[in-house]
């Protein structure tokens, strides 16, 4: 079972308490009415399909209930980091130097 660090509870907990919530950092355009159908399609439906380090959202469903962001390697399932929703997207190079 994966162990996931919840940045709100500040505890590393079993995966069974969490739910996956899709790709992170998908930002709604500040002026939605200016968007074309093509841009809407990309915003709503088009997602990355990364083989490697993926920025994604998780929710501590059976816990504090909060959504947060994580960087997970989709091949090894290793979590490089987790951080609070709204925090800036970390640089992958920083995570790899500090990690392991």
């Amino acid at each position, binding site marked *: *079972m994966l162990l996931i660090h919840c940045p*709100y*509870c*500040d*505890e590393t*907990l*079993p*995966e*069974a*308490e969490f739910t996956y919530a899709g790709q992170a950092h998908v930002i709604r355009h500040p002026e939605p009415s200016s968007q074309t159908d093509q841009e809407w399609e990309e915003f709503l439906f088009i997602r990355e399909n990364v083989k490697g380090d993926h920025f994604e959202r998780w929710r501590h*469903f*059976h*816990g*504090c*209930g*909060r959504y947060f962001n994580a960087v997970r390697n989709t091949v090894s399932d290793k979590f490089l980091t987790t951080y609070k929703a709204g925090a800036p997207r970390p640089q992958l190079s920083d995570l790899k130097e500090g990690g392991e």
Partner: protein
Amino acid sequence: MSVSISTLSAGVIIETKSARVSVAAPKGRLSLRTRGDLGVFGSALGVEMPSKIGACVRSGELEVLCLGPDEWTLMLPQDQVASIFDALNAIYEAQPHSLTEVSAREVTFEIEGTHATDLLSIGCPRDIESIPVGEARRTVFDGVTVILWRDASTQFRMDVWNSFAPYLAQTLETGCKEIAAELA
């Protein structure tokens, strides 16, 4: 005022030499959500509001548990619920918040005995020993969200939503018997 609808009545569900599981008498429960100044809430309630998730603070018969960055559960005798509403309504203008009575939403199981942690580990993926005595956690038990208090080393309380309570009571009963059978 919400009315208790649970099909379980207070009393012992099972007692073996491994552990004892019982249903606690009905209690008042309030859900408080706010991003306001905790100091003001603390002085209105007469407790120091916990801000660490899982921390529990008791004052007299009132128990305040921090469940999330902006979420608290208040446990108290049912006849004191109205006075908490009065106390917090008085600060509503200055400190907007949501206070909801959820007394009948949950049932409390009391789980105690030498093998209480073993019994909890049949359904809870957490390391039960990692929960400090005196604190509580919202976690999962056999697929159901529960709040688990660790009142003493081998003494726990588990708050379960009403509709899941009969199922979890049965699961705990079976687990209790199995652990007792292993001991025999």
